[in-house]
């Protein structure tokens, strides 16, 4: 006959799950903000010029991307200051373009091979010379559909700065 009666039994109280959604939402927002939709890590400067007569590119699986531009500051020691070509995620000589395109084409489905488009992402301040060399390589590789990828805008604005 005790005066201080135990109110509860010894069992543990259930852990509250009320804050679980908050944690999930936090994760959701983190990934939404942090996701970068880029396949290749760029080792070159790549600021695309503006144009307004543009067409949408084909589906991603039919597109091969070639980057051209000056090496970024951390790579200038190795590759110098003049424009270079980046294939996939590394800088390569122009003569590798054919092999690169052919390898990519072989990985595609049979139906997509004919519709393959080469997207040329060229820095707006680079010289045309290297682009011409790349185009010559593409002709030799029979990759004839190309697209000069650009930002939508007035091309005359490019020339002012």
């Amino acid at each position: 006959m005790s005066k201080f009666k135990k109110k509860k039994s010894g069992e543990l109280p259930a852990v509250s799950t009320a804050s679980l959604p908050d944690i999930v939402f936090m994760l959701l927002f983190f990934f939404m903000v942090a996701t970068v939709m880029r396949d290749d890590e760029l080792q070159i400067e790549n600021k695309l010029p503006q144009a307004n007569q543009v067409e949408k590119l084909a589906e991603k699986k039919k597109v091969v991307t070639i980057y051209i531009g000056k090496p970024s500051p951390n790579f200038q020691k190795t590759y110098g200051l003049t424009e270079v070509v980046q294939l996939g995620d590394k800088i390569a000589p122009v003569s590798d373009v054919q092999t690169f395109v052919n390898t990519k084409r072989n990985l595609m489905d049979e139906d997509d091979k004919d519709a393959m488009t080469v997207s040329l992402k060229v820095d707006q301040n680079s010289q045309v010379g290297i682009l011409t060399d790349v185009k010559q390589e593409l002709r030799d590789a029979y990759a004839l559909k190309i697209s000069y990828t650009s930002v939508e805008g007035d091309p005359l604005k490019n020339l002012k700065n």
Partner: protein
Amino acid sequence: MARRSAPEVNAGSMADIAFLLLIFFLVTTTIEVDSGIASKLPPPLPDEVQPPLIKEKNIFQVIVNAENRLLVEDADMDIKDLTAAAVKFLDNGGGTDARNACTYCRGAKDPESSDNPKKAIISLVNDRQASYKMYLAVTNELVRAYATLRDREGQRLYNETYGSMTKRLSDWPATEVESPEYEELKGKIDKVRELFPRNLSEAEPQNRE
């Protein structure tokens, strides 16, 4: 009198709702596709093949030099005027005999300029040291010249601009590409394209030093 506490709302299923949202967004997010000026390269030529002879008046010469200056038909030109000049050249319709005459051209019919848009060629030569932004701006202006003329012909023949037709074609639902309307639209687009084919030739760049 004992106060009755409000019953607690069960929040256990909130997590499921959040996950559902997460998965929904993961699945439906489409990555924005790039856009650019489409172009077609000529196939490699065998060495022994001679390029066909083209009349001088059917060629519209555009040259960009190392200082990014524009030379059109041997005269200095500002890039703002390039589209108008190209339209004037393409739409000239100077052909007189049955084989070369252009029935739909509305140009000046200058005998010194192009015969027929099907024969007219724009030749773009650029110096290796020209900058890419200048090159792209020039290409853009020339493509715009073709687009203007195609729009005009689309308007005349089918009461719809070429731009609007191509947009409708690319927005066509993928499930209905077999329908006759789709084929009809495609036929119309090809017809307009045929009237003003994009004969944009890019010669090997020159390096005059």
